[in-house]
C-alpha cells in the first residue's frame, strides 16, 4: 500500500516562547540560537569570555584593595583636573565617560541605519564612533602620562599610599584601553567596507568566503557596546570607590 507522506508543510511553525522556547531551542538538534546569525552568536560568546577576564581583574583589584593595610590613594583627587585655577575632582574621567557613552549612541544608530541599507549614514556614524573612541584613548594616554610623570605612580609602588594601586590601575585601564584601540581599528575597517559597498554587493571579506552582510555592523556594535559596558563597571568600582 503506497502512502504519500507530506514532507513540506509550506511554512515553518512559529517558535515556542518562554521556558518551553528555551527547551525547544536547545533540544532541537539544530543550531540553538534561532533567528541569530552565527557570527552574532559567536560574538556574544566571545564577549561572555571577555566578561570573565575583566571580572577576574576587577575582583582581584577588590581583593587587594580590601586586604591592604596601607591607605589607598584617593581616586577623586588623583584623577582631578585643575581648570581656571580651581581643582575639580574626577573631571577627566567624567569627560571620558561621556565621550564613550556618546560613541555607544552613535554606534547604536549606525547599526539601525545599516539594517536600513543607508550606506552614507552608517558610514558617517561609524566614523563618529571611531573618532570618539580615538578621543577616549587619547585622553587615557594623557591620564597615564600625568600619573607616570607627575604623580610618580608605578605598577610596583607610588608616593601616595598602597603599592597595589598602580598595578591594579595600569592593568585594568590598560586592558580596557587596548580593547578600545582594537575597536577603533575594526570600526574603521567596517566603515570602509560599508562605504565601498561591500555589504550591498555581498562581496566576501578579506579572510573569509562568506558574503558581506549588514549584520557585521551589528556584530561590531556588540563589541563596541561591551567596551562601553566594561567602562561603566571600571568607572563605578575603580574611580568612585
Amino acid at each position, binding site marked *: 500500500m503506497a502512502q504519500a507522506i507530506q514532507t513540506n508543510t509550506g511554512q515553518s511553525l512559529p517558535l515556542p516562547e518562554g521556558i518551553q522556547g528555551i527547551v525547544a531551542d536547545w533540544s532541537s538538534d539544530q543550531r540553538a540560537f534561532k533567528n541569530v546569525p552565527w557570527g552574532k552568536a559567536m560574538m556574544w560568546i566571545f564577549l561572555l569570555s571577555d566578561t570573565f577576564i575583566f571580572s577576574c581583574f576587577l*575582583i582581584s583589584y577588590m581583593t587587594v584593595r580590601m586586604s591592604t593595610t596601607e591607605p589607598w590613594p584617593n581616586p577623586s583627587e588623583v584623577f582631578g583636573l585643575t581648570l581656571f585655577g580651581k581643582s575639580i575632582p574626577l573631571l577627566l574621567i567624567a569627560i571620558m565617560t561621556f565621550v564613550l557613552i556618546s560613541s555607544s549612541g552613535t554606534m547604536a544608530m549606525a547599526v539601525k541605519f545599516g539594517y536600513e541599507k543607508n550606506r552614507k549614514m552608517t558610514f558617517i556614524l561609524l566614523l563618529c564612533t571611531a573618532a570618539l573612541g580615538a578621543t577616549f584613548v587619547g585622553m587615557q594616554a594623557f591620564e597615564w602620562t600625568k600619573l607616570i610623570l607627575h604623580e610618580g605612580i608605578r605598577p610596583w609602588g607610588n608616593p601616595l599610599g598602597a603599592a597595589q594601586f598602580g598595578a591594579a590601575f595600569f592593568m585594568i585601564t590598560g586592558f580596557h584601553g587596548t580593547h578600545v584601540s582594537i575597536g577603533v581599528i575594526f570600526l574603521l575597517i567596517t566603515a570602509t567596507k560599508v562605504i565601498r559597498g561591500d555589504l550591498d554587493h555581498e562581496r566576501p571579506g578579506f579572510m573569509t568566503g562568506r558574503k558581506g552582510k549588514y549584520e557585521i555592523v551589528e556584530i561590531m556594535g556588540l563589541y563596541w557596546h561591551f567596551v562601553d559596558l566594561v567602562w561603566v563597571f571600571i568607572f563605578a568600582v575603580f574611580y568612585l570607590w
Partner: protein
Amino acid sequence: MAAHVEGQQHPIGIYLKIWGLLFVLSTASYLVDYFHFQGYLRWFLILLFMLLKAGLIVAVFMHMLWERLALMYAILVPTVLLMFLLGIGALEADYTFLTRGVFFLKGLF
C-alpha cells in the same frame, strides 16, 4: 516581538532616549563623588547607577531585550556565577587583612 532574520529594526527614538538616560545616570554617579556622599548611601547609589547603566546598554543597545530566551540565558546566567567569585574574593581579602593586622601591624587590633 521576536526579531526576524533580517536583523534588529527599531525606531531611532529608543536609541536617543536611552542615550539621554545614560547621560543622566552618568551625571548622577559623578555627582555622588562631587558631593562627597559617604558610607552605605554612596555604595548604594554607585551600584544602583552602575547596574542601571549596564542594564540599559545590554538590553537596548545590544538588543538583548529582543533576543530569544535561549541566547539571553546562555549569556546572562554564567555571569551570575561571578557573584560567587566576588564573594570568595571578599572573604579571602577580609582574612588576609586580619592576618596582616595580627602579624605585621601589632597594635592595630
